[in-house]
């Protein structure tokens, strides 16, 4: 087999009209090269044989260079270490000690859905994955309604009797115990208000989603272990694509799950296969494993699409798989009814060309999110919290306590702040019960305001974009300082910042709509009309004077009062981010000393 090479990660700095300085991050060497050679170099990607790189360059060669010139150039690059032999990437992984079989604790976050919780249990405790391992189960309940909470407690007690593993129920009372133990082990050095904010904050007088704080509780209770967290509406039943072939592993970055919409459950089920897998076994095998070793053992050619940046990241350390997530099959997981309109690819025609199907999807798209056929290891920040295994043995970031997108925020914080790592995406989807998803109402089609979760994600991306310090807990703390600064802005400056963030977000969506309308030449017409309606709504929101206030807080008193509440929330998030490494460490110490909630 031909020897393979991957490109170095370079920075290109223009030096006059004809030359570039090229800084090679893999070697730390700076060299000078002509503009055309730099242009060719920038077109390299993936770990490939010389002939494959040659083909790549032939395709981008707008000047029709002689073959021998390209070949000589490739040979020169190998000497200059702009192309690095494949084995070099594997040399770096030899010291890995991970041998699989991580102890996994299963956690569930639930709130106000007793029937879902019951289903959650039913599909799991009878499953071999749970039964044979006697997997410990933690239920974190954020329900405030006493009657529903009692129902949940009863459900937990019922299943405790029929399950051989440990089942731990955590609600307000148990959280208090956890807080006292953290205070005890840290000599009360962490302010109690920070602990309360991290694990049980909610806006005063406003209904808000608290899955973030509920997930934080799971993180703390299982600190030092691997955690499999799944939401209460994800049943332990698995599906794969019908057209799935041989599964292989590949490494990439900035991956996004393909999203496929279906008019109803029947048609969805026709497009999938029910599969029987031992999901926990997959988690045990791969969580905290060295990503490159995994794919090296699993498949040839798996580095075909590796980017220079990811390859350089692997060379500098031994990044492990920190998170593993599966897809969803069934009920929709999105709140924005316009989302299916952005569908692209082959599926689009199938879905949009028939008006009846289009209407059904638009009003309540049944949905499946799963890779087509491969296991994909990626270095980006996209993950889905509905069914997620986390390497909680070393420091992970917290979720922000409130709002939607708690999983996206978690992934973004992981990617932007902590040590480089990977997410493994599985080619399986868990059943997402669609029965609790009501059809979209007319108001859903007109309210396109941005909520605190989206704002929080955008603020994190904005504040971390200029970070230059190395990844690690100091970055998390630095982000905390930045959040505090942001929360301390004068109210008019704060509103201006939110407005600018909002405009950035809305304009991106408007831009994409324009692009798609052009791409599909405004066909079919019903789709184009909806897209244009959405565009107008986005524009109206952008031009509105007082639209920077997050959705949940729009009914909260005056604009000033609402913004003040959000400002204070972000300031508190800043404090939490700064204290989180200490909180997590304390929780881990508790577990190691058998004083945590796991050992009640």
């Amino acid at each position, binding site marked *: 087999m031909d020897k393979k090479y991957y490109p170095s990660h370079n920075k290109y700095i223009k*030096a*006059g009209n004809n030359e570039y*300085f090229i800084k090679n991050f893999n070697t*730390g060497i*700076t060299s000078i090269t002509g503009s055309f050679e730099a242009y060719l170099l920038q077109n390299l990607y993936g770990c490939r044989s010389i002939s494959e790189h040659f083909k790549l360059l032939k395709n981008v060669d707008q000047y029709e260079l002689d073959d021998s010139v390209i070949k000589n150039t490739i040979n020169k690059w190998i000497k200059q270490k702009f192309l690095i032999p494949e084995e070099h990437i594997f040399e770096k992984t030899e010291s890995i000690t991970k041998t699989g079989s991580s102890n996994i604790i299963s956690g569930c976050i639930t709130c106000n859905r007793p029937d879902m919780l019951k289903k959650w249990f039913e599909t799991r405790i009878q499953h071999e994955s749970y039964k044979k391992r006697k997997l410990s189960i933690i239920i974190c309940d954020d329900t405030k309604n006493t009657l529903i909470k009692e129902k949940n407690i009863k459900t937990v007690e019922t299943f405790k009797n029929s399950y051989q593993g440990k089942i731990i129920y955590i609600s307000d009372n148990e959280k208090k115990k956890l807080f006292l133990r953290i205070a005890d082990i840290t000599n009360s050095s962490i302010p109690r208000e920070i602990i309360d904010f991290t694990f049980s904050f909610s806006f005063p007088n406003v209904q808000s989603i608290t899955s973030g704080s509920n997930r934080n509780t799971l993180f703390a209770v299982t600190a030092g272990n691997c955690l499999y967290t799944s939401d209460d509406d994800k049943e332990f039943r698995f599906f794969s694509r019908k057209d799935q072939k041989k599964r292989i592993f590949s490494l990439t970055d900035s991956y996004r799950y393909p999203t496929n919409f279906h008019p109803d459950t029947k048609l969805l089920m026709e497009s999938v296969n029910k599969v029987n897998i031992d999901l926990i076994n997959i988690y045990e095998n791969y969580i905290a494993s060295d990503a490159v070793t995994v794919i090296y053992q699993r498949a040839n050619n798996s580095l075909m699409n590796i980017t220079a940046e990811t390859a350089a990241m692997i060379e500098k350390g031994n990044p492990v798989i920190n998170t593993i997530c599966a897809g969803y099959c069934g009920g929709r997981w999105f709140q924005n009814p316009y989302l299916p309109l952005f569908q692209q690819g082959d599926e689009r025609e199938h879905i949009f060309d028939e008006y009846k199907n289009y209407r059904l999807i638009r009003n309540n798209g049944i949905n499946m999110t799963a890779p087509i056929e491969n296991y994909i290891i990626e270095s980006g920040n996209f993950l889905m919290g509905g069914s997620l295994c986390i390497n909680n043995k070393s420091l992970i970031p917290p979720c922000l306590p409130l709002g939607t997108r708690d999983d996206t925020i978690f992934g973004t914080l992981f990617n932007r702040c902590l040590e480089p790592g990977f997410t493994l995406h599985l080619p399986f989807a868990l059943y997402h019960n669609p029965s609790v998803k009501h059809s979209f109402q007319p108001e859903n089609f007109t309210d396109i305001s941005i909520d605190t979760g989206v704002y929080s994600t955008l603020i994190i991306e904005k504040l971390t*974009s200029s970070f230059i*310090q190395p990844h690690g807990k100091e970055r998390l703390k630095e982000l905390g300082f930045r959040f505090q600064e942001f929360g301390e802005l004068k109210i008019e400056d704060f509103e*201006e*910042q939110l407005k600018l963030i909002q405009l950035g977000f809305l304009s991106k969506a*408007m831009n994409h709509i324009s692009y798609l309308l052009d791409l599909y030449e405004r066909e079919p017409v019903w789709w184009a009309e909806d897209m244009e309606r959405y565009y107008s709504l986005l524009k109206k929101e952008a031009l509105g004077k007082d639209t920077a206030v997050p959705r949940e807080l729009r009914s909260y008193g005056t604009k000033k009062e609402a913004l003040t509440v959000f400002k204070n929330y972000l300031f508190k998030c800043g404090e939490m981010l700064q204290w989180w490494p200490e909180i997590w460490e304390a929780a881990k110490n508790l577990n190691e000393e058998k004083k945590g909630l796991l050992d009640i």
Partner: protein
Amino acid sequence: MDHLFSGYSVTFKTGKGSSLVYDLKNKSTRSLDNMDRRKVANLNKKGSNNFLQKRSHLSFKLESDIIYKKDKYCSNMPEITIITHEKPDSLLKIISSIIDNVLIRYPDIELKVIDDSIENDEKNRHLINKIKNEKGYKILYFGKTEKNLLQKNILSGTKKNSQMEKAISFAIFGTHDLGSVPGPGGNRNSSLLISAGKKIISFDDDIIINIKQHENIAKFIKVSENQIPEINLYPDLNMLDKKILNSNIDIINYTTNILGNFPSSYVSSVYDDYNTIIPENIAFGKSINIKAAMLGIYGERWNDNLLGILLNDGYDKKTSYKNKYKYSQIKSKPVSLLLHDETIITRAPFFVSSAIGIDKTEVPPFPPHGRNEDGIWAAIIIALSDESYISHSPFAVKHSENNAKIFTEQDYYTFSAGFGLSNYLLIQNTIKNIISNYLKVTYESLGKSLINISHLSDSDWINLCHDLWLEYAGKTIEKLELLLSKYKRKPKHWAIDVDNYISTIEREIVVNSNALPKELLKFHGIQKSVKLHKLFFREYGELLVIWPEIWQTAERNNRIKTFG
């Protein structure tokens, strides 16, 4: 359509040819579609009446009369300071020229000599006392003893703590650990504190108040976002002298009057070159706050960077570079003329502090170590407020530096980062990062960001310095190539030097550690140099955070002394 000219806005693309424009002044969003864009394109065509009418509402010319009127000056008596270091002979010359040209006309002005000499401090103190007794003017000497007293006085007026004490000491004396990188910044900071609350006109000890100007000075003041005064280089003073005339301008009056706020009502009528970019502030009718005024300079060269010789693009370049012999004189010992034929008010951070005016309102501290302290200072002034401007005067003072090192051929084969340049690049990059987050640059945010980068690991620090240096080197090569093209590689002897220097840059930049300040590398290894460089940023960052309190205390002390 007003928003089209309000440069102070943020634009977001929303599709092919359309965008959303957020107006930061009115805090409102507008939508800009293809039709609007076409209208703008038409308006921008030279000679369009519509465009000119539009511009007339947004005029950007300041009437020059306002800075020549004396009434403004009378209530704002400046203080004059001389910044000196180990040059007693030069000091005597400048004091004499100030007495002859300024004090004789304004005997009540206080002249303060700020001295950081170690060998000549007693000699200078004696000299000042002697002149003071003989002439009877208000001449005060500030050496180490007086600076210690200044530090004590400020401390007594603040919540005294070790952090404050350390910051003041760093501002005035720098830190012992960076003794290998001296600079005039500490002396300049002493001047800022001694005269806090007053307008300051500050001269370096190698200046002589012998004012020159061009023959035809424009009768207006040009406000621009990015213009800087032109520099011309000559082989000798004789050739330079032919280019300029004696001026009878009252330089103290002129400089004092131009400092401070100009309300938008002072901005009237249209400047005829309508290709000039309209400054954002003018477009909004905001006031312009001139925080610092730079006088032109002529004479012996005042910096140690030879790049200016190769990058020279002055109007006299063709004649002064043509002759090979004269060019070789310029290459080794150029005589410079930094002078424009109009007053320029700009936000370009180009600043040479040999002869300057400083406004009475708060300005940042200079970096107390290294050169280029004035460029860094100006960059921070501009970053701190969008109303802050710098002015460049059409009048020049004489720079007399007989000890300037003669450039050798070997110097043209060296390209290394100096402490001042490296700091300038790092600080500008930090400012850029703060702004890219839409955040305001404040003493606190900038200070904390500098402290923050000082916590980088040694290897990350070298990488950061190297990345910025590479960008600087790349831009320098680009500028040199542009000049080669503009002058069609003539004269040849200059073009060959430029080619060689580009090769020098390309050779030197491949070594990462060359991006560290040469002043540190000269005395220390790479590791120690990195540590000292980071130490400087931490201490300067800490000083910036605390500076408003230091300055305000000094200002309060000065006020109580004056009126109490």
